[in-house]
C-alpha cells in the first residue's frame, strides 16, 4: 500500500539517528504509525519530513509529539507542512476530555448522600410548589377574567376525552378477568352468584380508580413533564416570566384542574366499564342474564362504595398532575434531563398513588364504610 504512512530509521547520518517519515501522514493512515512511533525507544535526533506526500493537522500533531518526546528537530517540512506544524506546536493537549471522576469508594457514599439530600429538598420543593399553586389559585380567584379557560378545556380534552377508548377497553378487560377468575374460585364454595358482589365492589372501591390513575400517570403525567421540561429548555418559561405571565397560572393550574376533575369522571367511567365486562362474563359463562347482573349490582353494592371511589379519584388526579408539572419544571440543562424527569414523574406518581390508596383503605374501613 503506497498510500500508507511509513517510517525508517537512518542511524548513519552525521547528527545521530534520523527518523524519516514518508507517504501520507494523515488521519486516515495515522493509527498504525502512531502506535509504532510510541514504541520507539532509541533516541532520535531529527525528524525528516522531506519524503512526506501529504500531511494534515493530525499528522503534524503526531510529528510534534515525537519531536517533543525525543527533544529533537524537525527538518525537510514543506511550507504547507510548516504552517500546520506551527499551528499545533505550542498546544498542550495532555489531560482528559471528561470531567475528572472520583474513585468508586468516594463516589458511592457521595452519591448516597446526595440522594438523601435530594429527597429532602425534593420534599421541600413539592410542598413549595403546592404553595405556589395555591397562591396562583387565589390570585386567579380574585381576578376571574384572567382564568385560562381555553387552556383548561384543551387539557380536559387531552387528559379526559382522548383517554376514553384506552381506559374503557382496559377496564372492560379487567372486569372480564375478575369475573372469570373470581367465579372459578367462588365455584368451589358453590357461591358463583357472589361474583356480582366481587366485581361490583372491587371495581367501584379500588380497581376502577386505581387503574385509571396509573393509566393517567402514564399518559398525561408523562406528557406534562415532557412538555413543561422542553419549554423550560427552550426558555419559553423564562420568556413568560419576563412578560409578566405566571407559568403557574397559565401552564400548571389548567393541567392540575383538568387532571383532578377528569380523574373523577374517568374513574367512574372505568368502574362502569369493568362492571359491564363482568356482566358479559356473567351472561356467557355463569348463566346470569346481563340485565339481571346489573340489577343485582344495585342491590349488593352499598352506596358508600361509590363514594369511596369518587373521593379517592380527585386526590389521585392531583398527585399525578403535581408530579408531572413539578418534575417538568425541574428540568435543567439538557435533553437527557427531560427523559429522566419524565420517568421520575410517572414512577413517583404511581408510587404515591398506591401508598395513599393504602391509607384510604384503612381510613374508610375505620369509619365504617367497609
Amino acid at each position, binding site marked *: 500500500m503506497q498510500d500508507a504512512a511509513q517510517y525508517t530509521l537512518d542511524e548513519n547520518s552525521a547528527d545521530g539517528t534520523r527518523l524519516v517519515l514518508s507517504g501520507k501522514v*494523515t*488521519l*486516515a493512515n*495515522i*493509527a*498504525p504509525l*502512531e*502506535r509504532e512511533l*510510541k514504541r520507539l525507544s532509541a533516541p532520535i535526533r531529527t525528524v525528516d519530513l522531506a519524503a*512526506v*506526500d*501529504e*500531511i*494534515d*493537522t*493530525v499528522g503534524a*500533531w*503526531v510529528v510534534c*509529539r515525537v519531536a517533543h518526546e525525543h527533544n529533537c528537530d524537525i527538518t525537510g517540512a*514543506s511550507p*504547507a*507542512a510548516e*504552517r*500546520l506544524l506551527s*499551528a*499545533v506546536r505550542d*498546544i*498542550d*493537549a*495532555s*489531560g*482528559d*476530555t*471528561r*470531567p*475528572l471522576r472520583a474513585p468508586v469508594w468516594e463516589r458511592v457514599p457521595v452519591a448516597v448522600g446526595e440522594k438523601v439530600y435530594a429527597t429532602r429538598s425534593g420534599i421541600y420543593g413539592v410542598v413549595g410548589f403546592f404553595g405556589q399553586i395555591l397562591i396562583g389559585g387565589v390570585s386567579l380567584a380574585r381576578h376571574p377574567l384572567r382564568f385560562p379557560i381555553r387552556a383548561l378545556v384543551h387539557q380536559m380534552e387531552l387528559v379526559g376525552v382522548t383517554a376514553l377508548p384506552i381506559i374503557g377497553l382496559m377496564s372492560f378487560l379487567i372486569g372480564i378477568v375478575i369475573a372469570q377468575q373470581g367465579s372459578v374460585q367462588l365455584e368451589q364454595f358453590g357461591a358463583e352468584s357472589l361474583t356480582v358482589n366481587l366485581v361490583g365492589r372491587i371495581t367501584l372501591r379500588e380497581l376502577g380508580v386505581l387503574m385509571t390513575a396509573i393509566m393517567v400517570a402514564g399518559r398525561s403525567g408523562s406528557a406534562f413533564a415532557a412538555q413543561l421540561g422542553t419549554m423550560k429548555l427552550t426558555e419559553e418559561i423564562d420568556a413568560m416570566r419576563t412578560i409578566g405571565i405566571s407559568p403557574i397560572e397559565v401552564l400548571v393550574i389548567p393541567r392540575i384542574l383538568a387532571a383532578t376533575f377528569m380523574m373523577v369522571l374517568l374513574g367512574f367511567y372505568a368502574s362502569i366499564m369493568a362492571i359491564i365486562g363482568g356482566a358479559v362474563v356473567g351472561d356467557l359463562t355463569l348463566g346470569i342474564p346481563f340485565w339481571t347482573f346489573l340489577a343485582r349490582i344495585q342491590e349488593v353494592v352499598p352506596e358508600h362504595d361509590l363514594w369511596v371511589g369518587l373521593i379517592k379519584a380527585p386526590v389521585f388526579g392531583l398527585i399525578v398532575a403535581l408530579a408531572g408539572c413539578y418534575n417538568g419544571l425541574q428540568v*435543567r*440543562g*439538557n*435533553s*437527557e434531563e427531560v427523559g429522566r424527569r419524565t420517568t421520575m414523574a410517572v414512577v413517583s406518581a404511581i408510587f404515591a398513588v398506591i401508598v395513599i390508596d393504602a391509607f384510604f383503605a384503612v381510613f374508610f374501613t375505620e369509619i365504617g364504610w367497609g
Partner: protein
Amino acid sequence: MPMTDHPEDLAPPIVIEGLVNRFGDFTVHEGLDLTVQRGEILGVVGGSGSGKSVLMRSIIGLQRPSAGRIDVLGRTITELDLEQGIGVRRRWGVLFQGGALFSTLTVGENVEVPLRKYYPNLSSELRHEIARYKVILTGLPESAVAKYPSELSGGMRKRAGLARALALDPELLFLDEPTAGLDPIGAANFDRLTRELKETLGLTVFLITHDLDTLYEICDRVAVIADKKIIGVGTIPELIATGHPWIEEYFNGPRGRAAQASHQRHHVADGG
C-alpha cells in the same frame, strides 16, 4: 489538506447545476447554478427566507432536491445513497447555526464522535489528544474541553461546534451564520479564526451569513440568492457593478456603507 496531487482534487469542490427545491406548491430554488472554487471562502447572502439554509442542506445531502445535480468533491450527492455518502462525508465539516452539539457529551467527546465513527482504530490516547488540540485551536480555553455544552456561552458553543466540524481535517467547511448572535469582538475574532484556519489548513469554506463585516473582511467571493436563483457571484465591487437593485440596496444601504468604511479604515491602517 494542502498537499494533494489527485486530478479530481483540482476540480471545483462544489458544482451545482439546475437545482430545484420545492415544498409542496412553494418553490425555493428554480434552476439554481453555483460553482465554489477550491481554496476560497464563498459567502452566501440573501434575504430571510430566500433559501440559503435550504441550499446548504441540499449540498450536504440533508434535503433531497426536486431536480438538478449537485457534485461535491467529485461525487454526485444527488445520486449517492447513504453508504456511498460516507466517503464524501468524512471530507467535509458542518457548523450548524446553534452549534448543534450533542448535549449529553462533553465538548471534547463531541469532537471525538466523528473520529470514533470513521477511524475506530485510533488509539484512545491519540483521539483524546486530537479532540483537545482541535478545541484549543478554535480558541477555547483548555478548561472547556471537559465541560458540557449547557455550561458554555453561545459564542463558546459555536467555537466548540467548529472544533467538531474540523475534527476530521476536512477539505470543505460549511458554516451557517457563524457570527450571528456573537458580540462584535467575538464576531471579529471568529472571522479571523475562519480566515486563519482556511489559510493554514487549505480549506474551502461555504459560509452563509448576514454579517456585512464578515463579507468584507474574509470572503473571497460572495454569491447572492434572490428570485429563487443565484443572481450574482463575485467580489463585492463586481457585484455592486452589476447594478441589480437588491444587491445595490444590500451593499449600499446604511449598514453596508458602514461595513465598507470600516473595512477600508482597517486596510489603510494595515498598509501604514
